[in-house]
């Protein structure tokens, strides 16, 4: 009988895999030790001049109480452009990979309604909205800002999805809103030149830019979540 051959082959394969893992682990351990040794001898990089300039001048330049907001909305606003562009490209890529594969009527989940979850989330989601808007509005005075507030607002749609998974959402309009918001961000930040010469305009500029970025991030993250939640497994190419 050749039966014991199978269990023997499985055990030999296990041993081979374990040996490979141990080899890789010891190799990487060696590289890590070399890096730690090198790092100890090279030391860290100093950026003292830029740091002291930002430390001294950020309130005078931007009228923002939060140095981080001052940097990503005024000193380095091009970084923010490209971050928003990258999020939009990511949404486009996900739309390409799931093209015509996502449907909005999931009849199989219609019976799965948890009453306790529904009651709790119905109570919670106005609070989530208020917290998100607070983070965006006070982003120039306290920790917070457009990115974090937009992510908190995206949690609202997720909680609505948990309460009612069978509901139909119009994702297409969100896509158009996202593109419009990106154009608005680019065109509005050209007003930065104005903002640097009129003192009264500076704090208003910070708040409006935070709101635009916040809603942009909210639209992008919501679209990503809905594409993942509503993939129809049957219509995908089967193997």
């Amino acid at each position, binding site marked *: 009988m050749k039966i014991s051959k199978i269990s023997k082959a499985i055990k030999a394969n296990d041993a081979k895999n374990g040996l490979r893992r141990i080899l890789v682990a010891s190799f990487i351990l060696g590289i*890590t030790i070399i890096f730690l040794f090198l790092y100890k001898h090279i030391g860290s990089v100093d950026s003292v001049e830029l740091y002291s300039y930002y430390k001294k001048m950020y309130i005078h330049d931007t009228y923002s109480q939060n140095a981080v907001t001052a940097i990503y909305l005024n000193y380095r606003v091009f970084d923010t452009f490209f971050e928003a562009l990258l999020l939009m490209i990511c949404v486009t890529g996900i739309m390409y990979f799931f093209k015509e594969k996502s449907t909005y009527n999931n009849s199989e989940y219609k019976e799965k309604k948890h009453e306790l979850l529904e009651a709790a989330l119905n109570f919670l989601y106005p609070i989530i909205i208020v917290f998100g808007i607070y983070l965006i509005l006070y982003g120039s005075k306290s920790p917070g800002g457009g990115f974090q507030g937009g992510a908190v607002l995206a949690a609202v749609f997720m909680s609505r999805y948990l309460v009612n998974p069978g509901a139909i959402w119009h994702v297409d309009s969100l896509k158009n809103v996202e593109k419009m918001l990106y154009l608005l961000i680019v065109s509005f930040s050209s007003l930065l030149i104005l903002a640097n010469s009129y003192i009264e305009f500076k704090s208003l500029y910070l708040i409006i830019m935070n709101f635009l970025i916040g809603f942009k991030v909210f639209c992008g993250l919501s679209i990503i979540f809905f594409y993942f939640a509503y993939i129809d497994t049957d219509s995908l190419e089967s193997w």
Partner: protein
Amino acid sequence: MLNGEITSIILFFIGVYGIIARRNMVKSIISIGIMEMAIILFLLSVNFEKGMRAPVSGLTSNISDPLPQALMITAIIIGVAVNAIGLSLFINIYHKYGTTNWTKAAYKRRQGGRK
């Protein structure tokens, strides 16, 4: 003994180990997430000294460096975008070859596409 830079180097190489030694696709995406966290930790702790305060509410003296913080916020958003793209690629490969294993998917691809 453990400071931020040393911890982040160790975390980064744990992520590299996860990518090389693990053959599951979802495990690879998780390892990329760990490497990204390590880089953020490195850049935040590279100029940090004990007793520094957060750069909010109008403080101007003895604050931590605000430049890497502003860049790292964008890095986190890009990180979740990378995760989402990776997961959508995973779903496509999974539905084409019916496996979550890199080696097996490559084997099936050499055999001539779908099975």
